[in-house]
């Protein structure tokens, strides 16, 4: 068949600039074929090449003695957790596909990140996710015109459709695959309307010696294709993800959204882990973004070899697929495996056992070229290393966004103090961004694999990694022919090699929008704080940079400053970045999304007795506030960018609270010391909604079973802080604050120890009763915990009815 000739229009349609096309020709020393043009366009898209962000990403701390595989080396970073064990984890976005087709877009996002993990030789043991959507509640104001209100209503309906679809898609894929989705975050804001964010994270476990590389090693080694046949779905998805989202593009690009099959993924995962145990594999790589193209040229580039494949041997779902389509297809659940020559039979045996389609499609060469043939005719012949690594790199222009001036100029002068603090807290608790996310996580299987110690709903999820979670060394995970019973039924009392890890994902994008640098720091600080509250020490970070179009200098400024903040935070908490993902062009016709550098952090918990949850435990326990109640140097007293300012005054502005990383670090360290010392019954940080929401959640967030919350009241005395505005005292979001509780008899000891550790600690109340009461200088505020719980727990379910 004849391929279209290369015209400037065609080049432009492939998202390549004239300069980039020049560069391409220089590499080839000739005009590209149509297939080659397609290959370059996807490999040089932001999604694959990071051409706009590479210089910035260099700013991240990526080194630590614990890091076994560092950022950018492979599909995911790997960190040592002791005793010869390690964890591999990474977060990745699937924003554009989810905007077009929420269910499949989100589902395949989960599938993609799971593949990244078992490609490293690790068994995937848990998933978490971070979602951003447009508002799911009306919010139309009286002064708005009827037409405007009608418009809002339809927008809200669409936001709800996207929300429901994304959650169902994640549930469908994760539940069927059999991975627990144990933590996450969801925020609702107008800036995500029509451009939702779906960031999916997966963590896997393995032994040090089980780490495998995505490299095409060994000249002459055969290249195997494993998984379902290649179809036209997901054509050039990576390129699609690297453009602004418009109504038209959404319509046209529906074909760029892949369709997921978690059942197939489960088989491919089990087969690959079984195969890797045989040591017959020289290299392995999943076919994710840019499918066959990316996997072939990257494996060759990493090994410094070449690779040659014959497309007619690639299993194909559709008839008459062109080389262009086969190379750019993003059909899911496919793997590329480089097999040690002579071991083919073992590989075939494993795949046949799992009834998986496979084909030998090529071999490793010493030419350094990526050669693609179709029925013997060469359709692409490209220097693999240059294609993979020589993408153009741009130092984009940055300019401080104009809006920031107004943000900094904002004062509380025009903002009256609250007249109804009781009503304010009730509204905040029911606000979807703060309300319980049980409507979401009850749809996710968050307990499969028998490891979930702390379920979703506390500051951080805690996972027990049991010895038999790790891929079996040199032994298939399951017998192919029935053997005798394992007489080695290890005596139950024998000590187990178990690890406890904590996970959290955080980012208050409003802060980042109002101050990209400070906001970036806060995202990391909150993640580290959540880990500390659960009793964990940070191990490492994976970040997902979701931003608008980097060609806009104001957007690039947000990106540069946010990255600077995140990097500083990771350095401060000794939680190096092990990898991550960049998603740009997140904007719809109305404008860009709030800059959202999602931060997922993993920590290690030494002993089971250190595990701490956020809810109050027993009547009579003392409530202690760690950290100073307010930041005296903040003229906005923590109300800048706060949930209270947004919800009660309709204003998303003001300089956000400042983040003092040194102080935060001391606070987290001190909290861990206190936890290790014993006697800390609960720990919950103050974030959105401030002290009042934190205390309320400590009273109402323990769920023992279906429709069976364990509610407990609290009597809190805040009269000592009369120097603050009431709204600032209750709802200000000053950083570096944690609410803990302990038995009354331990309180004095704990206060003394905190003093010795150099952090402020104030006894502010006592746990107990059926009400939460605040005594302030002027009055007493009373909430019934039952009512608070109903507002907080059922809010999202009511909106989604």
């Amino acid at each position, binding site marked *: 068949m004849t391929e279209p000739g290369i015209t400037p229009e065609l080049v432009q349609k492939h998202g390549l600039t004239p300069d980039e096309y020049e560069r391409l020709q220089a590499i080839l020393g000739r005009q590209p074929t149509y297939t080659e043009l397609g290959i370059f366009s996807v490999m040089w898209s932001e999604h694959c090449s990071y051409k706009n962000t590479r210089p910035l990403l260099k700013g991240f701390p990526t080194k630590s003695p614990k890091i076994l595989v560092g950022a950018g080396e492979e599909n995911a970073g790997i960190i040592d957790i002791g005793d010869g064990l390690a964890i591999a984890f990474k977060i990745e976005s699937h924003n554009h596909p989810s905007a077009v087709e929420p269910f499949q877009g989100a589902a395949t996002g989960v599938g993609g990140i799971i593949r990244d993990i078992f490609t490293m030789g690790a068994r995937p043991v848990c998933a978490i996710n971070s979602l951003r959507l447009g508002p799911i509640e009306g919010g139309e104001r009286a002064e708005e015109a009827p037409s405007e209100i009608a418009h809002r209503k339809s927008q809200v309906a669409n936001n709800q459709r996207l929300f429901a679809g994304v959650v*169902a898609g994640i*549930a469908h894929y994760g*539940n*069927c*695959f*059999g991975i627990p989705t144990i933590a996450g975050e969801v925020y609702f804001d107008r800036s995500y309307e029509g451009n939702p964010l779906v960031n999916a994270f997966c963590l896997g476990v393995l032994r040090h010696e089980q780490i495998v590389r995505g490299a095409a090693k060994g000249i002459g080694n055969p290249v195997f294709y494993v998984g379902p046949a290649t179809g036209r779905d997901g054509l050039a998805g990576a390129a699609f993800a690297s453009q602004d989202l418009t109504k038209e593009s959404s319509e046209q690009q529906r074909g760029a959204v892949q369709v997921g*099959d*978690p*059942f*197939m993924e*489960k*088989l491919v995962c089990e087969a690959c882990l079984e195969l890797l145990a045989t040591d017959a594999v020289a290299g392995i790589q999943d076919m994710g973004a840019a499918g066959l193209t990316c996997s072939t040229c990257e494996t060759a580039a990493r090994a410094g070899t070449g690779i040659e494949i014959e497309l007619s041997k690639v299993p194909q779902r559709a008839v008459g697929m062109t080389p262009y389509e086969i190379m750019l297809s993003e059909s899911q659940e496919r793997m590329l495996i480089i097999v040690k020559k002579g071991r083919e039979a073992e590989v075939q045996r494993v795949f046949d056992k*799992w*009834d998986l389609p496979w084909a030998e499609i090529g071999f490793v060469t010493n030419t350094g070229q990526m050669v693609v043939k179709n029925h013997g005719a060469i359709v692409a012949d490209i220097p693999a290393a240059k294609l993979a690594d020589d993408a153009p790199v741009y130092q984009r222009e940055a300019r401080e966004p104009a809006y920031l001036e107004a943000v900094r100029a904002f004062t509380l002068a025009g903002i009256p103090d609250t007249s109804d603090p009781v009503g304010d807290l009730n509204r905040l608790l029911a606000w979807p961004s703060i309300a319980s996310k049980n409507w979401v*996580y*009850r*749809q*996710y*299987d*968050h*307990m*499969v*694999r*028998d*490891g*979930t*110690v702390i*379920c979703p709903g506390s500051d951080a999820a805690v996972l*027990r990694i*049991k010895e*038999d*979670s790790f891929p079996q060394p040199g032994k298939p995970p*399951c*017998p*192919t022919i*029935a*053997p*005798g*019973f*394992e*007489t080695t*039924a*290890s*005596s*139950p*009392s024998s000590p*187990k090699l178990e690890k406890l890890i904590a996970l959290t994902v955080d980012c208050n994008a409003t802060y980042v929008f109002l101050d990209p640098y400070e906001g970036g720091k806060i995202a990391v600080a909150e993640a580290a704080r959540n880990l500390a509250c659960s009793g964990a020490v940070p191990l490492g970070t994976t970040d997902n940079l979701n931003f608008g179009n980097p060609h806009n200098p104001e957007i690039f400024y947000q990106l540069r400053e946010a990255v600077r903040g995140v990097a500083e935070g990771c350095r401060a908490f000794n939680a190096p970045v092990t990898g991550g993902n960049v998603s740009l062009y997140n904007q719809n016709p109305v404008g860009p999304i709030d800059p959202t550098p999602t931060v997922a952090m993993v920590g290690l918990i030494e002993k*089971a007795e250190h595990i701490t949850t956020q809810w109050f435990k027993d009547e009579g326990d003392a409530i202690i506030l760690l950290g100073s109640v307010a930041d005296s140097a903040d003229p906005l007293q923590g109300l800048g960018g706060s949930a209270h300012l947004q919800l009660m005054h309709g204003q998303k502005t003001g300089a956000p609270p400042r983040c003092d990383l040194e102080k935060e670090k001391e606070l987290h360290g001190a909290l861990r010391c206190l936890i290790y010392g014993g006697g800390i019954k609960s720990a919950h940080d103050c974030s959105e909604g401030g002290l009042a929401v934190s205390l309320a959640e400590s009273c109402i967030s323990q*769920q*023992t*079973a*279906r*429709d*069976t919350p364990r509610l407990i009241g609290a009597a809190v005395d805040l009269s000592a802080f009369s120097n603050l505005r009431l709204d600032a005292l209750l709802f200000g979001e000053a950083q570096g604050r944690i609410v803990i509780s302990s038995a009354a008899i331990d309180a004095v000891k704990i206060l003394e120890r905190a003093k010795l550790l150099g952090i402020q600690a104030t006894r502010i109340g006592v746990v107990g009763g059926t009400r939460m009461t605040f005594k302030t200088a002027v009055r007493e505020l009373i909430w019934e915990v039952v009512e608070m719980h109903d507002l907080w727990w059922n809010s999202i379910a009511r909106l989604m009815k």
Partner: protein
Amino acid sequence: MNFAVLQFPASNCDQDAVHVLKHVLGQPVRLLWHKETSLGDTDAVIIPGGFSYGDYLRTGAIARFSPVMQAVQQFAANGGPVLGICNGFQILCEAGLLPGALIRNRSLQFRCEHVFLQVGTTDSPFTCQIPPDKLLRIPIAHGEGCYFADPSALASLKTKHQVLWRYVNAQGEPTEQANPNGSLENIAGVCNERRNVAGLMPHPERASEGLLGSADGRLIFESLIHWWLSVHPSDRAAQTDLEHPVLIND
């Protein structure tokens, strides 16, 4: 007591069942691949949770035709104990080894949460060690767990005391609120007339260690082992382990 845990493509609670039987209860256990035609030297069969063959057609609809299920049919016909958990329960109903069917949750959504269960009778190998008034706190995780049976089947289930577990609230009442999926009469699990085959939607293997928040599920496995000992007092392996019950962070 020799346990065999079936493994279908996309079984995903198989390793959990093995973990609990082997490491918590100290029983000999092995995984049995779906292509096996013989159960070998098996004393009890566990059909674990998951999405056998993807369950795209209908839960358990394909698994029932697998070679290993033919062997399980024979095993059950000979009186061997079989316990189906979640997808395993769905498969047993599809295979006709248990009455009734499991359909989409009333909410049309997947549900994962802890629920309270109460035993309908202690007269079965799967409940004999559970105190009648004890509330079992055990998680569910399913999209198709709404138990359904036609009126006559339901009536016979009740007269023959085949309802082993019901969803109840914290006070032990089988209220509509306590019913997570719309199951008829809050039924969470049943057994066959001969009482050697049982299935339930909740996951006892996820509630067998204190560290995970509840060890109530262990009572179901321990019931089975006790029952086995009562009919095979010579089974030393199981005996010794039960004489020294395992407590992991309880």
